[in-house]
């Protein structure tokens, strides 16, 4: 009981410090670097979504680019055809993707492990052509894509569009991460992890597998869908070519490298997705695939819980040593 006040103070301090760290770049970095960080925040939210279903619940999805695409298009269509303000499109994109994810979650109940990976992989490959198809053309702008006008800071705020887009994206990301943290602090986490690690025991213990799995899928898809919407707003353009299978694979690689069942892991994975291709350009222009492949395999062997897991391991072992 006596420890409560200091703990509360401490957590308040941590939140404030975190907010300062997130806010600072907006005033320290150039427009281009802000754009990069904005995209990193977008990917962090997308990978957060993927981690709910793949990391925590153990259902391997190679097709989250599909949800990202739906979210991006939902936002883009609402902004261009219906002239909605950019921020109002996020809940709609999230809700649409959650419904889509819920629908995908039902057949996914019958698929385990590798088979779900195969179906979602096929979905990821098929996304661009579905977007280009005749029936979607009227909405999606077909092959030409849709150009979006980016957000401006609200009247009175002396911020450039880059600064405002960054702050807006990071704020949304922070809210989503906080929600995920609450979710994962509760019973849902145990149900999800139990399903991943001991599905039969979980069922025997009275966990409703179907309910938890489909819900996890819906939440996951909704989260990644919001990321898609944020990405569309930041890039100010959507086209079928933006959502090729490479996107789904990049999200998956980011998830695994960062740490599949970890919130900081999602952020680290996003940093990987955003910055590693640029670094591997230095090795060889054709190398990103090779670098991605090697790092992915190396991570799985050397750091089975990703970079986040390895860091946590390093911290705990150090603490253990100092305690001794």
């Amino acid at each position, binding site marked *: 009981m006596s420890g409560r006040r200091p703990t509360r103070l401490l957590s308040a301090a941590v939140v404030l410090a975190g907010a300062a760290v997130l806010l600072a770049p907006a005033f320290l970095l150039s427009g281009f670097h802000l754009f990069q960080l904005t995209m990193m925040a977008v990917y962090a939210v997308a990978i957060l979504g993927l981690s709910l279903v*793949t*990391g925590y619940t*153990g259902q*391997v999805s*190679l097709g989250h680019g599909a949800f990202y695409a739906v979210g991006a298009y939902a936002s883009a269509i609402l902004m261009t055809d219906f002239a909605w303000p950019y921020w109002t499109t996020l809940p709609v994109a999230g809700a649409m993707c959650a419904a889509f994810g819920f629908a995908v979650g039902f*057949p996914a109940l*019958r*698929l*385990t*492990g*590798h*088979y779900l*990976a*195969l*179906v979602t*992989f*096929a*979905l990821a*490959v*098929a996304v661009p*052509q*579905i977007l*280009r*198809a*005749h029936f979607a053309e009227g909405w999606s702008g077909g092959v030409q894509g849709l150009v979006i006008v980016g957000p401006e800071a609200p009247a009175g705020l002396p911020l450039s569009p880059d600064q405002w887009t960054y702050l807006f994206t990071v704020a949304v990301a922070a809210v989503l991460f906080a929600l995920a943290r609450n979710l994962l602090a509760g019973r849902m986490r145990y149900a999800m992890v139990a399903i*991943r690690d001991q599905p*039969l025991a979980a069922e025997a213990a009275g966990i409703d597998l179907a309910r938890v799995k489909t819900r996890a899928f819906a939440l996951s898809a909704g989260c990644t869908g919001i990321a898609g919407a944020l990405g569309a707003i930041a890039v100010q353009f959507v086209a079928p070519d933006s959502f090729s299978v490479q996107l789904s*694979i990049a999200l*998956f*690689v980011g998830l*695994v490298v960062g740490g*599949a069942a970890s919130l900081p892991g999602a952020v680290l994975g996003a940093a990987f997705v955003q910055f590693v291709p640029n670094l591997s350009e230095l090795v*060889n222009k*054709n*190398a*990103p*695939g*090779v*670098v*991605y*492949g*090697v790092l*992915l*395999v190396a*991570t*799985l*062997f050397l750091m*089975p819980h990703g970079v986040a897991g390895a860091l946590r391991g390093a911290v705990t072992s150090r603490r253990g040593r100092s305690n001794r």
Partner: protein
Amino acid sequence: MVGLLHQTLSGLATGGVYASLALALVMVHRSTHHLNFAQGEMATFSTYIALMLIQAGLPYWVAFALTVVIAFALGVAVERLLMQRMARASPLAVVGVVIGLLLLFNGLSGWLFGFTIKQFPSPFEGNGGGGAFGGMVSDHEVGMTAVTIAVLIAMSLFFRMTKLGLAMRAAALNPESSRLLGIRVGATLAAGWGVAAGLGAIAGMMVAPIVFLDPNMMAGVLLYAFAGALLGGIDNPAGAVAGGFAVGVIENLGGAYLVGTELKLTLALVIIATVLVVRPAGLFGHVTVRRV
């Protein structure tokens, strides 16, 4: 009606492409219960090796045999170095490694051999034959189908008649009991990957003359091959070959008369999802009961 017949014939010809890669997918699944997403990229990489050997002056069939041997070694190496240690890992880790291999082999093909399309020789062309059915099916496609069926027969003989084949089946079905019986389970699993890679190399060399060789040659083929393998039964070589041909026909007829050519791949997605949800063992597969 003639159109329908023609679409069916040309679908069978394309189906041969899927059937040949489907065999390799079945092989891996039978021996390790993995779905090898990297199978297509490994096959493409092997095909580049074959092209190098042919350009170095080796006669076609010598290069062919040598490539199969090299691919076998590659498959064994991948299993020994990577997959073996993943035997008890989560599906996420296994899929991760396989996707890593996909990226790696695709990147290597492009890096080492370039991205422009290359012609790949066919051993069945240039004999003056004008193909079958008025050119609906080319000489090469007839030859490829013969090779696929020959490989299929060889595979079933291998699994039924040879000691290694029987050991592999046993090891896949029940590794614990097999080990007790003195079967070297590790070696048989490696052999399974090796054989699969060899089959993939054959598929690559058979497919390349039709679709031309480039680093992404198998990107489209892979999903159709999976659809075929699942439709026929992912544990049943004969079923997978039949499934491959069936998918070729379904794809053609569906594309021409049903959903339009723009959604052909979506059709493959639907086949994969439907089979897995409705009848996971495929049309000709056995339902296996897993003990817990």
